[in-house]
């Protein structure tokens, strides 16, 4: 069903049951009174269990759309999303999402602590453990001092960190994050990047991380999936062959880091300029 000018764009796929998360020929069309909007044309890629992948792409390229489909909050128009081989048809268990609209994703009627605690409480996690998890998460995002504030009494960056703390405390198996550090300062951002990598390594969680910061995508991910502009296909699925141990100073000064970030930057510029990949132009570089 592909038009001839846009060949099947695909990210890396895995054989059989190795994939934790599979996105297969996903297409999403929004129906509006002004006509249909084809946000995502065709996406196919797999994530194996415990992988940390970053998703980059121009503004409006369908990253949020993709995340919502994976989270089972929206049904794709065509194609499917499989989690552990099972088709996603509603929010799966043990998945945490940090939404781009962090402000609206916090419950204004709950205090910071209650916001972070709610999913755990809902899961029936015993009080003592819950307290520990919540305290640790708030500590980790640097908000141990405001547990009794309401979200709307916090600055933008603080609100965003509450949303991150909630996801981290939940100890999910799959973690979807939509530009989770957009509102925090550079130093906090660096700290949070390291937090995510620590959590990822400790819990073995599968992470899909949307970011606009190219350095961040390269620093964080084992893989960077670059989306074309809308209607979206995969521009490139890039493996980040940096050492597993990363730290802000050394990793970022590696020549390979600079190479990779240049490559990503170029691809995004291409994507923005409307360039679309050919069927052949797949896989690593």
């Amino acid at each position, binding site marked *: 069903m592909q038009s001839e000018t846009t060949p099947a764009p695909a990210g890396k796929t895995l054989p059989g049951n190795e994939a934790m998360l599979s996105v297969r020929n996903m297409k999403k069309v*929004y129906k*509006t*009174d002004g006509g249909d909007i084809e946000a995502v044309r065709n996406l196919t890629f797999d994530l194996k269990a415990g992988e940390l992948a970053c998703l980059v792409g121009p503004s409006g390229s369908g990253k949020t759309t993709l995340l*919502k489909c994976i989270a*089972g*909050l*929206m*049904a794709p128009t065509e194609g499917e999303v499989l989690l552990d081989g099972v088709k996603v*048809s509603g929010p799966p268990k043990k998945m945490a999402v940090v939404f781009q609209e962090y402000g609206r994703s916090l419950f204004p009627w709950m205090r910071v602590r209650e916001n972070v605690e709610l999913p755990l409480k809902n899961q029936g996690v015993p009080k003592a453990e819950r307290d520990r998890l919540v305290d640790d998460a708030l500590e980790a995002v640097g908000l141990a001092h405001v547990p009794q504030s309401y979200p709307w009494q916090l600055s933008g960056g603080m609100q965003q960190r509450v949303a991150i703390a909630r996801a981290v405390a939940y100890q999910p198996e799959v973690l979807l994050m939509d530009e989770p550090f957009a509102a925090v300062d550079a130093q906090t951002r660096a700290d949070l990047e390291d937090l995510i990598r620590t959590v990822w390594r400790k819990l073995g969680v599968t992470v899909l991380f949307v970011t606009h910061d190219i350095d961040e995508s390269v620093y964080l991910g084992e893989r960077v999936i670059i989306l074309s502009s809308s209607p979206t296909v995969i521009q490139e699925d890039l493996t980040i062959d940096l050492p597993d141990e990363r730290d802000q100073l050394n990793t970022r000064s590696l020549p390979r880091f600079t190479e990779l970030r240049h490559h990503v930057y170029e691809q995004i510029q291409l994507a923005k300029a409307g360039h679309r990949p050919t069927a052949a132009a797949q896989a690593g570089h």
Partner: protein
Amino acid sequence: MRFLKTLGYVLALPLILVAIWWVSTLGETNFFVPTPALLAEAFAETWLGDRILSDVLPSIGRLVVGVSSAIIFGIVTGLLIGSVKWLRDLTEPVLEFFRAIPPPVLVPVLMLLMGISDSMKVVVIISGCIWPVLLNTIEGVRAIDGVLSDSAHTYGIQGWARVKYLVLPSAGPQIMAGIRQCLSIGLILMVISEMFASSSGLGFAIVQFQRSFAIPEMWSGIVILGLIGVAMSFIFQWTERRVLRWYHGLREVENAI
């Protein structure tokens, strides 16, 4: 096809309820609870004649005037009271006082002040059905998002422009909830207003039937009230879908699962 589906939704439950009613009145007969057949017969006899002109239409006329005045007056006052804190503090106790006065004791006072006239009846209708609009408007105005309000403020959008572009649309959903309540309360008050000093009208007829033990006729009048209620509400919901198009779009996208 879509029309049939809508029709199904509209008729299904009423038909089920009528069936239940029919079955449960099969055996015994209670003077005060007529059978569906009896009611239908009374309905046809009572209303499918010149009563429509002499009783129903004048009532609906007063109803329309009363309800529209209540809506306009309620929104305007609500906007004022909702936006001006000191005005709210000043007026709230007095408004609450009036809100608690039952129409049957308010009517004689109005009769004193206004005499026996259609406008008195219209005022009775207004006096009862303005509250949901007023309260909902006040609360809707108070609930405007802070960031949005700040945005309007910094761009110098003030006064009438603020009302038109910010306050009304933002409070729209809540105002609509109030208007919806207002319609049915208006209908109820139309009946109550005709219980005093009148000699015609739908409410008058219902009360007369009740007093003269014409029970099927009384219920048939109530059915008319219900049908008017349904008709008004459908017109209202149709309008609302258009006025609040953005709102319904905003709330309903992405509810695919």
